[in-house]
């Protein structure tokens, strides 16, 4: 893999959920935090983990696993949250673990493989082939658009 000097590079915040590595462009990410005291919201959809107070702001927590139609996180596994600002509102995307920030060249981003899981395909904006892993880049607008419903895997 050769990287030419004049290639545009983008920073991605990486994280894993259900053993899959994901990346979000760093400009969509406000902060990363450990969610505490999430208040469940009755009658809300399964993707809504609840609401929480992050330094005086009310954050709506969205469970990425439910969003992707995956099984719930195991007992005792504590999620991490990626803080996102979208249209004046604060969201927290609940993930299994947060990784490092990667600088990746734009021209190496490949379109979604056609056999990508449908739930994943709905919210993915391309993939990177890393050493031994695939990194799925998420389109945050599509992740937050809950009308694009996930179907049970």
């Amino acid at each position, binding site marked *: 893999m050769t990287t030419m000097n004049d290639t545009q590079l983008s920073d991605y915040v990486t994280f894993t959920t259900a053993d899959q590595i994901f990346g979000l462009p760093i400009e969509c990410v406000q902060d990363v935090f450990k969610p505490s005291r999430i208040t469940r919201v*009755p009658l809300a959809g399964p993707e809504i983990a609840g609401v929480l107070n992050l330094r005086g702001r009310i954050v709506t927590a969205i469970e990425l696993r439910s969003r992707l139609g995956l099984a719930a996180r195991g007992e005792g596994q504590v999620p991490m949250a990626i803080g996102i600002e979208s249209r004046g509102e604060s969201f927290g995307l609940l993930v299994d673990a947060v990784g490092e920030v990667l600088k990746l060249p734009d021209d190496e981003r490949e379109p979604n493989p056609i056999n990508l899981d449908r739930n994943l395909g709905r919210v993915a904006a391309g993939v990177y082939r890393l050493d031994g892993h695939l990194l799925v880049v998420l389109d945050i607008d599509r992740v937050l658009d809950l009308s694009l419903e996930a179907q049970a895997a």
Partner: protein
Amino acid sequence: MDDLLREFLTETNESLNLVDAELVRFEQEPNNGAILGNIFRLVHTIKGTCGFLALPRLETLTHAAETLMGKFRDGMPVTAEAVTLILSTIDRIKSILEAIETSEQEPEGGDGDLIDQLGRMARGEVAAPPRAAPLSQPAPAPVELKKPDQPEAPEKSDKQDKVGSERPDEERGDRLANHSIRVNVDTLDHLMTTVSELVLTRNQLLEIVRRQEDSDFKVPLQRLSSVTAELQEGVMKTRMQPIGNAWQKLPRVVRDLCAELGKDIELAMRGADTELDRQVLDLVKDPLTHLVRNCADHGIEAPAARIAAGKPAKGTIRLSAWHEGGHIIIEISDDGRGLDLAGIKAKIVEKGLASEAQLAAKSETEICNYIFAPGFTTAAKVTSISGRGVGMDVVRSNIEQIGGTVDLKSVSGVGATFTIKIPLTLAIVSALIVEAGGERFAIPQLAVLELVRAGNSGEHRIEHIKDAPVLRLRNKLLPLVRLKEVFRLGACDDENGFVVVTQVGSQVFGVVVDGVFHTEEIVIKPMSSKLRHIPVFSGTTILGDGSVIMIIDPNGVAQALGRAVAAAARAENSELQSREEENDEDTVSLLVFRAGSQQPKAVPLSLVTRLEEIDCRKIEISDGRHLVQYRDQLMPLLRIDAETSLKKEGAQPILVFSDQGRSMGLVADEIIDIVEERLDIEVSSDRPGLLGYAVIKGATTEIIDVGHFLPQAFADWFRRRDPSAARQARSVLLVDDSAFFRDLLAPLIKAAGYRVVAAASGADALAALKSDTRFDLIVTDIEMPEMDGFALAEAVRAMPGAAEIPIIALATMVSAETVERGRAVGFHDFVAKFDRAGLVAAIKEQGTDLNRAA
């Protein structure tokens, strides 16, 4: 836009609104020199500023108006025409101002027409009707304004504007002008938001310190807390405005309506200086205007009709406002005709909002409140004022949006009163923190009436009607909604719950929660866009301990409650009624018994022939039916439902219903009591054989429909007993506007061996008579919309071929007066609506008379 111009527009608009209100007052009190002086000054100020800002068109117009007003001030009599002319001038000024606001320059066109008229009137050319006495004391003109030729300095004009806009009263205006400044509304709003955040932070600090004993922070925090409270109050005060600001336009509105409708209406205002948050004020302005228009258009009658009804020709609309525990109450009442109940009922049915059967069980207040339903209007003709089918529903939703309620009381012929209750402010509200299914929620304190501890051990036990939980609270049935079930947080345990008695509009219901904590001042934060579709929540908030909780929207919960709430409202209203009618003799003897379930059952005692205890061994079973020999006849025994079982041994209590020598027995487990009580069926039932539920001696009681069981026992009997009657097939025309009573009575008359044709109105009945005059008897309700029973009788008497048909009247209340009037129009008999046996007897009696006559 130029700052100066903007300032001018704002101030001029304020001044114009004042002129409006002043002018109407002036018309009423032409001798009041002070009012005249105020108006003159205001118009003059506008004129002066116009000249300064180079707005020639506006200046010429105001000048002409000012000249005329000057004449009035000098003693020229003020006529209604003159006031109208000045008002239309002001309208013109307003429209010019609007154009300036959008285009920043005066619109094309001239005002020659108005200026001409103004000039002519000022010269006395229009024949103003001479007054008996000229203005007794020409008002002294303010010296500094008397010289219009004096060039005006901009500062001065500015100052005049302030005086004008603050308060018409000159002295006070001067004083206020020196002590007040103009602050941008945005600045105040921002201040309010900041204070809200401060309150939140204070709450959090308090929570932290509460958990620590002997904290050094305790004392300074207490100080901080009280200062915060003071600051909050102070900032709220800056946003407060007198409700009179929202009323300013109303005198003009009423005056214009009077002119258009040919009515004479006085608008009396009380409590105009009651203050409320400007945000709330803005939102309540339009609903208020609409309600006042409504009173003027629908409520107050035309002068002739008022005199005919024995009222003064001049109608009165009263507007009052006052504070009451964190709320402001605004009352709008008129002394008009009240709401047209029959018209509303007809409209409800027409719109399919409720069936006649449902309406029959509703109270007057409940029916009146249908006018708040979307698209509801009863105005026969669409006027420019009201009757466009938009309005009352918007009024209600506007008021409910700001956490307020609107209530309506109407007394036919006496007037209607709207009561609006709104919170003083919206940003910070007091909320009750409750727990359900392990989660905490906030219920706005405004909606909470009281808290009741529920549980099987305590005084208040949760009971069930079918599957619907209810609570008996001070002798009324309160429908309950379990928060846990609404939120799908698991099954509810009724043992150790609390009931939060909640009111939404006129609906009262109980919300069952697991626990109740405390009340807290909460700052409402908007809901996440991902959660806005959930109707039971209105927002989120951060509590003192830092956790986020959802704020419950009582409106949404009421919707979840659905039918039960309607039933509760009915229970509530019937309670009110029973309170009002306590002195009435309108009680019924009821036989209370138990059969099958533990819940007591009741029938009107008048229907029961006797109570018997029959030896079980005498009960025989034939063809699947229980029979007993009773007075040398076989009497069928019926069970109320499958749950009721006959005793195996000993004595079986039976309620015996007899008619024409035949008897039927209804099986009971136990006769409990005979009580004298008003029978208010509060929750109606769809179950056959059950009319509904009522509270009797404090217990929820099922009211049994004997009419359902009679045909079961008697169907064959009628056929066997009177074959001649069947052959003759006498036909009865049954007229009742309520489908409920038609459905109740038609089978009864049929069972007595008659052919029944039911008609829903007097007109329908006449049509039926025209097409088929072979009716032997007419049974008609007296109270019906459009054509009542009396009118129908008169019409029948005048109808060839039908004039001789006997008429039986059904009356809910029979007074000597009604009987007298009935005799005059030719009723043969009166029967109380509930007395079915009496009706059958009366029908038979009339039939015999016919036979004899034949």
